[in-house]
């Protein structure tokens, strides 16, 4: 497998302690004043030209948030965040209405290059400039689109500045745009679905997000449509002291299908950065949403200084019968990860899946898992979680599987495997299982293992260096999950695993 070889090269090519994406792009930003107040909420809403109902919605969330306490049940430890010492809005100044990539700041394009956007997607991005003549675009029939096609909605410090392949998507009736644009162009859809999966007052961070979210992505797949390409968003936190509050809403109408890719990197910097995104997915009858994430934010230095705090609320609602939502995540970055992509299995025969690889090294702290809430008859779910801890990191799987009274015949299979590298890290598994009817079947398997000295000796005896041996063994450990990632992400992820585990041995 060529990708494993890539991993090895990657490990060789990067110095330990040198964060690959540790750079800052110099683009002038427009900041709202520091701190949080009703005025800031109004300011953000005003900047986005939002209708009155949305401003009210935000204010309601803000008032609610004031009464809430930061949760402390997760197995993570960090200094108290001063929410009044953050900027809540930053938008690149140079981006007013670019209609094509030619109009986009070249520094931004350089950033994409530095981000190491997968080759396929880079080609597409580069191709976009040529494709800019409408005639070429129009000739691209939906039928010709191979699986290699990826549409990218790049969120650069809060505001979507580049949207590609829009026309092709439009042909299929797919709406893929920034959520602020969706509010303007499709207010009825946003109003109908926003906050219906993650309510405004769901939790401390989600409520904060509801009050101050700056922008994010919006996807709408009409009835019976199979989205002709993978939809991909690259997030990048770039402005110092700016909390990023993304809001993503994906709606799959009856019988539709969409695969969504989210990948992230962030520049190196000293102060902690807060990220509190909300992602809401709605799948109606017979619809399927596949949501994949590769998260590679700055994890902090060897002593745990700096690094991003990631408090994310991701939830999918299998609202219709036979609907399916599948989360696949690869978490390698962030100082603190607090993240539980979940499924509400409301529809009869609906299915939820959670495939996760969480790697922690250095002083990283990961508390992640999923919730599978079975409400519909014969709903089923599957959880495969692979946690890898190295260095002085702590890695916790926290999961809830519950079946309500009406969810007769519900089924769940959970497998949680932890791998420890070294003897200063920790792996924890905290599963909660609740069944309120007698016909549900829940299975839970958990293992904890170490990379054995024998495995290391064997691999090195065959010529592999210590770090390449670790990367190879870990890639083997996570293989079941890797296979669920879209092709575009697989090779990249294998590299990332190698990079993330640098300095974990010897």
């Amino acid at each position, binding site marked *: *497998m060529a990708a*494993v070889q890539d991993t090895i090269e990657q490990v060789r090519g990067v110095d330990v302690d040198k964060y690959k994406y540790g750079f800052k792009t110099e683009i002038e930003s427009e900041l709202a004043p520091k701190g949080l107040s009703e005025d800031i909420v109004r300011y953000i809403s005003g900047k986005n030209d939002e209708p009155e109902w949305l401003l009210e919605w935000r204010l309601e969330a803000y008032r609610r948030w004031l009464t809430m306490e930061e949760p402390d049940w997760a197995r993570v430890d960090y200094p108290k965040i001063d929410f009044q010492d953050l900027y809540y809005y930053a938008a690149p100044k140079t981006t007013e209405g670019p209609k094509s990539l030619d109009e986009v700041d070249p520094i931004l394009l350089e950033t994409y290059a530095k981000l190491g956007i997968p080759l396929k997607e880079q080609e597409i991005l580069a191709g976009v400039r040529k494709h800019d003549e409408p005639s070429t675009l129009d000739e691209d029939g939906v039928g010709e689109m191979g699986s290699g096609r990826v549409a990218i909605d790049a969120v650069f410090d809060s505001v979507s500045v580049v949207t590609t392949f829009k026309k092709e998507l439009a042909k299929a009736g797919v709406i893929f745009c920034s959520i602020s644009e969706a509010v303007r162009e499709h207010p009825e859809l946003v109003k109908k679905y926003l906050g219906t999966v993650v309510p405004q007052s769901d939790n401390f961070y989600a409520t904060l997000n509801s009050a101050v979210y700056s922008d994010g992505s919006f996807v709408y797949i009409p009835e019976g449509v199979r989205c002709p390409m993978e939809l991909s968003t690259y997030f990048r936190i770039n402005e110092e002291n700016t909390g990023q509050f993304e809001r993503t809403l994906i709606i799959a109408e009856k019988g539709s299908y969409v695969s969504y890719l989210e990948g992230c990197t962030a520049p190196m910097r000293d102060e902690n950065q807060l990220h509190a995104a909300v992602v809401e997915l709605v799948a109606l009858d017979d619809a399927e949403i596949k949501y994949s994430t590769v998260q590679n934010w700055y994890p902090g230095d060897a002593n745990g200084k700096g690094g991003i705090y990631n408090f994310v609320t991701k939830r999918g609602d299998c609202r219709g019968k036979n609907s399916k939502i599948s989360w696949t995540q690869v978490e390698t970055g962030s100082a603190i990860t607090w993240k539980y992509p979940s499924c509400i299995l409301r529809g009869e025969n609906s299915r939820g899946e959670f495939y996760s690889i969480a790697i922690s090294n250095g002083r990283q702290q990961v508390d992640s898992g999923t919730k599978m809430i079975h409400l519909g008859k014969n709903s089923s779910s599957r959880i495969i979680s692979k946690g890898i801890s190295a260095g002085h990191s702590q890695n916790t799987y926290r999961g809830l599987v519950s079946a309500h009274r009406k969810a007769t015949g519900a089924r769940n299979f959970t497998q949680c495997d932890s791998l420890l590298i070294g003897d200063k890290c920790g792996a924890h598994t905290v599963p909660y299982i609740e069944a309120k009817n007698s016909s549900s079947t829940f299975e839970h398997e958990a293992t904890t293992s170490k990379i054995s000295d024998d495995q290391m000796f064997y*691999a*090195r*005896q*065959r*010529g592999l260096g210590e770090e390449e041996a670790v990367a190879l063994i870990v890639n*083997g450990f996570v*293989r079941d999950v890797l296979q669920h990632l879209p092709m575009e992400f697989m090779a990249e992820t294998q590299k990332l695993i190698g990079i993330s585990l640098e300095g974990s041995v010897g």
Partner: protein
Amino acid sequence: MLDIKNLHVKIADEDTEILKGVNLTVNPGEVHAIMGPNGSGKSTLSYVLSGKEDYEVTEGSVTYDGADLLDMEIEERASAGLFLAFQYPIEIPGVPTMTFLRTALNAQRKARGEEELTTPAFMKLVKEKAQQLKVRPEMLKRPVNVGFSGGEKKRAEILQMAVLEPKLCVLDETDSGLDIDALRVVAEGVNALRSPDRAMIVITHYQRLLEYIVPDVVHVLSNGRVVKTGGKELALELEANGYAEFETEAA
């Protein structure tokens, strides 16, 4: 090629000495058999040569191709052409055998400053070698040694050896756990690798393997020392008389 002088070895963190002054010289093209009763230090010798970390050399030296072998990292020894066929090959779940082999080969080539092999060239090489060893292609897709039978594991070891083309092969009890048919296949594979510039050290408890892999020199290792060296007939002698003679000598 290999020159072992007065090698004393103990288990790290313990006082028990396992090798008590081993002397051995192996020249290119030669096949040496090391025989001996259980606990005589045969496997320890193979581990010390390949650099396993649980052992401590307290005295003596090992020179390989003019270099101080004991000063080299495990993977450096591998790239320099030293291969150990394990008595109990290790499982690596989730890593296809093919991937493992390719990664290993290219790591070694890179370390030696050679070009990496392209995928088609590698596939061709492996296919060829696998056929010779009667290794089914499906086996190469399975994770390294996971769920392999005893015979499959040993064949996979020899396949790795054939692909990596080492200069010095150390075979640690390669015959253990093999039925006669598997033994023949494995031995054929090993014999096919015999060449004027390649040396082999075949470690075994029984003479049986040496009927198929005929050695140039046979050493008897007992209680941490080479107590007798002779030609291939020495193996037959041992088969007839057992190790008792040497064990009393050592005691």
